């Protein structure tokens, strides 16, 4: 009985362990550091991606167009391949503005998810008060919209952002085929709902 109790306690402790501990990340002793996401930072560039969204069994495809309009300001448009706009958002500092959204998508729950996902994706600068490392991996913890995020840096640059809650991954942003501050492929994967956003640079 005592053995059972202690195993339960042990399991409880393990499951409550922080995200960094679970992943064997070692805390580094430094103060505030800058967190930088370079992938949508060039004002001279139009970032155009073929996009595939899967929400449970429903699939949507189209083009996602991202432009840095000014310092700390981005515009993001999702349109069908034939050019019809599905949504058009502006992100300015912490402000979010819907310029257009197609009737079917105009639901608060959908807009909230998209706002959160794209705010993290587009946020260029952030500050971190805790950093970790594991071999060549460098991880910086920072907040976006009051949610805890971990930024993973490898030799090629920023490869992953994880939104975490209670030690579990909620949303994972993967940056792949990185070259010259451009991620040719991006995958946004939700772990608690069946939502995947796949972007391929065109």
């Amino acid at each position, binding site marked *: 009985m005592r053995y059972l109790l202690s195993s339960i306690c042990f399991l409880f402790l393990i499951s409550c362990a922080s995200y960094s501990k679970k992943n064997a990340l070692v805390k580094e002793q430094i103060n505030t550091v800058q967190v930088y996401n370079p992938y949508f930072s060039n004002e*001279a*560039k*139009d970032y*155009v991606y*073929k996009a*595939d969204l899967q929400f449970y069994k429903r*699939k949507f*495809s189209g*083009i996602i*167009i991202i*432009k840095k*309009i000014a310092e700390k300001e981005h*515009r993001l*448009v999702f*349109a069908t*391949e*034939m*050019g*019809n*706009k599905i949504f*058009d958002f502006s992100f300015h500092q912490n402000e979010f503005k819907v*310029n*257009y959204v197609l*009737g079917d998508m105009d639901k608060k729950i959908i807009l909230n998810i998209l706002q959160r996902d794209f705010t993290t994706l587009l946020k260029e600068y952030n500050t971190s008060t805790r950093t970790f490392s594991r071999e060549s991996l460098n991880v910086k913890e920072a907040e976006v919209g009051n949610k805890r995020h971990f930024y993973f840096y490898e030799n090629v640059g920023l490869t992953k952002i994880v939104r975490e809650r209670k030690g579990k991954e909620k949303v994972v942003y993967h940056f792949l085929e990185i070259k010259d501050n451009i991620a040719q492929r991006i995958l946004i994967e939700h772990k608690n709902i069946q939502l995947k956003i796949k972007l391929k640079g*065109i």
Partner: protein
Amino acid sequence: MNKILYFLFFIAFIGGVTAQTKMSTQEAAVLKSKVKARADKTQFISSDFTQYKHLDFLSNDIESTGKLSFKAPNTVKWEYVKPFVYSVLFKGETLYINNEGDKSNVDMGSNKLFKELNTLVTSSIRGDMFKEEHFSITYFKKAKNSEVHFAPKDANLAEFIKTFQITFNSVGDVMEVKMIEPSNDYTQIVFSKRKVNKAIPDAVFAQ
């Protein structure tokens, strides 16, 4: 001197505007019957196209190219080949989508918007959109060509499209379609290598 420059500039500006003049009712009637007669005789259309998506905030328009195939009365296939592989086939009551090999379809019978879209796509390819009950129509002359602006009267459609602008060549074939959104962003489709009534194999319209 400044005044002369100003005057010249003004003349040039007016000249630019008047390059596109409004048609008389008679001229408009001639164009309408020409296009209608051409559309009635059209069984097949195949054409290449270049699509330009213009968003005011972008530095450059987004360009894509592909092939269009049409079979009367209302089977249409838009096939994008660059910079992505994607096709939509409007056939009967179904819209077939092939997204880089991933196939799906939408039942248009149950979706009024898609049905309207199909009607619009078909009629804009043939140019046969002259329905006064659905659009406020304005006719312009532009050198040897004609340009017709269709502003939808239906509120649902007007929410997406402010005007359709179709450019016809002298024989009444559609050269260009421009769809202008209420925000003034637009999608422009320019046709090239257009072949009318050259039979297209059924395989092209297979799902």
